[in-house]
């Protein structure tokens, strides 16, 4: 497992402002291309050779007092050619914004959110973090063409308004072949003008992943802790589909949502059959889930019949469905085919029981946070 952030770096810099830098190991890079690049070296030696790079990042610390050098904390030792980081010199802080070798890259655009989900893995904060999206727009311009997909997440990305659309436009302009997957609660798209605006980006492969936790409004509103959210989300989905946007419905499975899962599947089939994908997702034990664990945790084995039924219903409506975050040993075999390895590599792990499992290589494994709580029924498949 790897960390995407460390404030244990030693950074000497003439600037206090955060820098968005692309890592390179090519010390012979033509000078004209060295701006916004950080040269990654094992140790700082010939200072003159670094001329023109915005920063030198060294894996080893030397005593030399040179400017614009960051000595990497061990946590970030994995950084490699093409990765993009944000370096904040005065707080010794390096955050990894993009990794070439990541299984999935998500751009985290804001901490603000208009919902307050009881199982939120990324608890929202009402902060003024408008700089994040600007940094990401800059980062996008540094990513190599050819990246398969970029995720956009928050908080609620659409709260950024025009800057959200500017980010989408930046991705489209800089990375015309890259798919975009936005995680949004869809509520702002209840305004038809915003749905129209996103369609005008005219992206060839942009999917909006929108959570729907119940077939009835009061339960959904309770889960997201926002009155009226169900109606806004439904109208948002309808508006997006009116403008031919791709929509994925995301359902997190826990004690407050599993009971009406088949009814939710039926509701989706009857009312929203035109959605492009449904993801049924196991719970990540992080963020608010920890505070509310008693009210949220249920051993997946206990809801397996409901899950199975929901999958059957969605199949009957010919809706493309996947299961995320659930281990193969908990799933009946007929569901293995739609169980996806969905957990990002940097927080993905397996346990001792998995060592002798014949299905380990096909299994998505666990969130790192499963240390706190996981099914009692994990067992190697022979």
């Amino acid at each position, binding site marked *: 497992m790897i960390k995407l952030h460390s404030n244990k770096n030693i950074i000497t810099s003439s600037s206090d402002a955060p820098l968005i830098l692309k890592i390179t190991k090519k010390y012979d890079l033509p000078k004209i291309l060295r701006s916004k690049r950080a040269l990654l070296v094992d140790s700082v030696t010939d200072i003159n050779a670094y001329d023109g790079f915005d920063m030198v990042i060294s894996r080893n610390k030397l005593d030399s007092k040179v400017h614009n050098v960051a000595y990497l904390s061990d946590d970030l030792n994995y950084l490699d050619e093409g990765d993009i980081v944000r370096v904040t010199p005065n707080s010794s802080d390096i955050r990894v914004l993009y990794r070439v070798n990541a299984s999935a890259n998500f751009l985290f655009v804001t901490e603000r959110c208009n919902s307050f989900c009881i199982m939120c893995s990324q608890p929202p904060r009402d902060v003024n973090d408008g700089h994040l999206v600007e940094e990401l727009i800059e980062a996008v311009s540094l990513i190599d063409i050819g990246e398969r997909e970029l995720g956009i997440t928050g908080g609620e990305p659409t709260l950024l308004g025009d800057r959200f659309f500017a980010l989408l436009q930046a991705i489209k302009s800089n990375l015309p072949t890259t798919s975009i997957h936005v995680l949004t609660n869809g509520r702002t798209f209840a305004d038809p003008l915003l749905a129209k605006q996103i369609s005008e980006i005219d992206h060839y492969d942009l999917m909006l992943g929108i959570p729907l936790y119940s077939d009835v409004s*009061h339960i959904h509103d309770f889960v997201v802790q926002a009155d009226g959210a169900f*109606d806004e989300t439904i109208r948002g989905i*309808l508006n997006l589909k009116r403008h031919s946007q791709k929509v994925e419905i995301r359902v997190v499975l826990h004690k*407050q949502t599993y009971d009406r899962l088949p009814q939710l599947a*039926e509701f989706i089939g*009857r009312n929203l*059959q035109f959605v492009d994908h449904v993801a049924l997702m196991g719970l990540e034990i992080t963020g608010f889930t920890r*505070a509310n664990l008693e*009210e949220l945790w249920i051993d997946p084995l206990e809801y397996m019949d409901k899950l199975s039924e929901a999958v059957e219903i969605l199949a009957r409506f010919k809706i493309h469905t996947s299961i995320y975050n659930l281990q193969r040993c908990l799933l009946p075999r007929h569901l293995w085919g739609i169980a996806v390895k969905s957990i990002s590599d940097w927080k993905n792990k397996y346990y001792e029981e998995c060592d002798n499992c014949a299905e380990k290589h096909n299994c998505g494994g666990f969130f790192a946070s499963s240390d706190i709580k996981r099914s009692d029924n994990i067992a190697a498949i022979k």
Partner: protein
Amino acid sequence: MGLSNKFKDLESYSEVLSDGYQLLPFAFHKISPDKYIATNIVGEYLTVSRDTLKLLVNGTLLPSHPIYNDAKSKHFIMDRDSDTALDLLALKYRTKQHPISEFTGLHIFVVSLRCDYTCKYCQVSRKMEDVDKFDMSEETARKAVALAFESPSKSIKIEFQGGEPLLNFPIIKFIVSESLTLNIKENRVLQFVITSNLTFLSEEVLAFCKLHNIYISTSLDGPESIHNKNRPRPNKDGYQKTIDGIRAVQSELGKDRIAALMTTTSESLSNLEGIVDEYVQNDLHAIFLRPLSPYGFAIKTKQVEKYNVDKWSNFFKQGLEYIIKLNRAGYFLREQYTSIILTKILTPTDPKYVDLQSPSGIGISAVVYNYDGDVYASDEARMLKEMGDEKFKLGNVHTDDYIELFSSDILLDTLEESIAESAPMCSDCGLITYCGSDPVYHYATQGDVVGKKPLSFYCKKNTSIIEHIFELLEDPGSRKVLESWVL
């Protein structure tokens, strides 16, 4: 215990529910002494007891009642917490009614009235084989094809019927060729079906069908004894010719290219399993259990009077039971009429079956071009004509243009009267969304396109079949089979 104190509990998000709810349009139907089906205008349903139904209708169903969330989710009721129900109902209603906006997709060409069979239930009143004046001419065919392509429908299915259409194979080739030429510009989804007894299924016919992906539909009434009795051919070899034909199509064109259907005579009633087995034995995976229609020879020979609706329903139910048993034992066999109704019950769409639509599908789902150029609103309409009644004749391809034919008074008036939602006893029927109307049938049997439903075989038949399907859906084992039949 409970959520951390930053959060509010479910009860506080449900408070507004105690203000009560509003009823959205629905009807109900008793299927057994204490079991009711409540259905809404988009085909969703709730199974409820009489007491629960009373609570629901009286506005006294409490949010804590186990059915409350289901009724809300399926848009039978709307509480103050959410106002998307009307948007979603409207969306679903548009989806269900969408086929109407497509207009006529099925174009039936009666290319010859001649036939080598002398079926005692023939609904058409066939002519002898050697009479050339009962064949469609090229001039008539050309005009009919042009009319078919005037339909706005994105998909056009051309079905060749008779008599025995293969007795006039040259005109079939002509029509296919004309259609394909027109379709270069029109770019519709074009499909051909030949409804044939397969006697004249030659190598040439098979090769032609293979080349143009033509589907074959045939009649198989059951084992040899029943088939030959129902469908006599002078040489008494009808059964064998049919089976040979089915095999040939299966091996030359593919298993999915042939479908068979059966007509139920009084002889069939006691031979149910044998009839179904005949389909299994011939590797057929769909069967259509059909009652006799009161047209043509079926009336002259008094065949239709030999069994009543109860006998028919029992036959159908037993048939269904046996077919489901075969499915559960691993042989996929779909009963077509049940499939159509199930699709109406279990999906947001409508399968667009002429006899189960409101307004009726006559003219607007299907239309018939007779061998002589006369245009009829449905297959049954031209059957009626062969009995001397031209009530549902829309015009003739040689004298009338598209607008004249499809806005003729007889079509528009009949369609208007065929809207079940405004017909006595249909308008408040709980099964209306799964049923439809059949103006030609009611005119033929009662002299009135609307008809008195208590006297209607159509009404009794559909009521009893739909009730039965709901009973089967309650049983998990049967339900699984039925779900696999959805179109």
